[in-house]
């Protein structure tokens, strides 16, 4: 049925932006919940934040910011028909994204090791506000982590399409949309850093 091809790059980007609207509101709901709880338990959130490893948080921020840069550079490379360069940029994004996840998993593992996870016996002994803090910490970073994984899968496909010339100088809307998604994941992390790691 859809034998003919019609292209509406602007429409595709509009669709992607509208999807990003839903993502912003999704995390927005969590941020609203966070501020609600932080207002209720300022001291406990302060103390909870001091348990987190701020150094790892900052390193991960730098990793993710750089991975965002390489995506946008890959688009510039495609616009200039520099296919190899574009693939190199995209590959570095993938590597950086995986690095982010690895660092994140070390961080989570350390928390589990200290008994700081939902429903743990140790957490139950802490004041209620801190239990909520760690509940939110795992929920929000976990959901963000899922988005990183989704973004990496999308960009992996993009890399494949660049390699096979499905994405090329005159047709790169998919790469743009994949990039938009990745940047949004980055923006969410930009907010998570001060809310959790720098809260102390």
């Amino acid at each position, binding site marked *: 049925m859809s034998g003919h091809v*019609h*292209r509406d790059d602007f429409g595709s980007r509009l669709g992607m932006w509208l999807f990003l609207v839903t993502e912003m*509101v999704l995390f927005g709901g969590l941020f*609203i919940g966070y501020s609600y709880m932080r207002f209720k338990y300022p001291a406990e959130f302060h103390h909870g934040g001091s348990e987190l490893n701020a150094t790892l948080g900052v390193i991960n921020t730098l990793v993710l910011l750089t991975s965002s840069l390489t995506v946008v*550079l890959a688009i510039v490379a495609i616009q200039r028909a520099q296919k190899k360069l574009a693939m190199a940029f995209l590959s570095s994004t993938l590597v950086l994204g995986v690095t982010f996840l690895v660092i994140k998993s070390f961080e989570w593992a350390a928390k589990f090791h200290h008994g700081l996870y939902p429903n743990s016996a140790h957490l139950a002994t802490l004041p209620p506000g801190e239990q909520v803090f760690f509940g939110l910490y795992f929920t929000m970073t976990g959901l963000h982590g899922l988005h990183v994984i989704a973004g990496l899968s999308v960009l992996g496909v993009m890399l494949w399409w660049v390699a096979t010339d499905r994405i090329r100088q005159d047709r790169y809307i998919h790469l743009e949309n994949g990039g938009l998604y990745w940047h949004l994941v980055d923006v969410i992390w930009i907010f998570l850093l001060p809310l959790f790691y*720098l809260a102390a």
Partner: protein
Amino acid sequence: MSEYVEHSADNQGEHHDEHPGYGTFIRVWVALLILTGCLVGASHLGQTYAVWGLLTLTPLKAGLVFYYFMHLRYEGPLFKVVVLVTLGTLLIFFALLFSDVAFR
């Protein structure tokens, strides 16, 4: 289905011919790194600075990513309106929620 897209009524915001180069984005990236440094620095100065850093520097960083990396700067007004409507809605949700929490 066919090539009727060309007639569509609003053609504003089609892609410009000249695209920004590598340099622009690398400069933005450097700015982002510096802002992150400032944010971390502010958080060490004490609670007040940390909160103000959170409230000013974080939106600024997010704004840079939206404006440059996500190409909002190079798009027509529609996408900017979409983003502003979204953020405005969240802000209103937040304010109304706090009409309960803050006065309970």
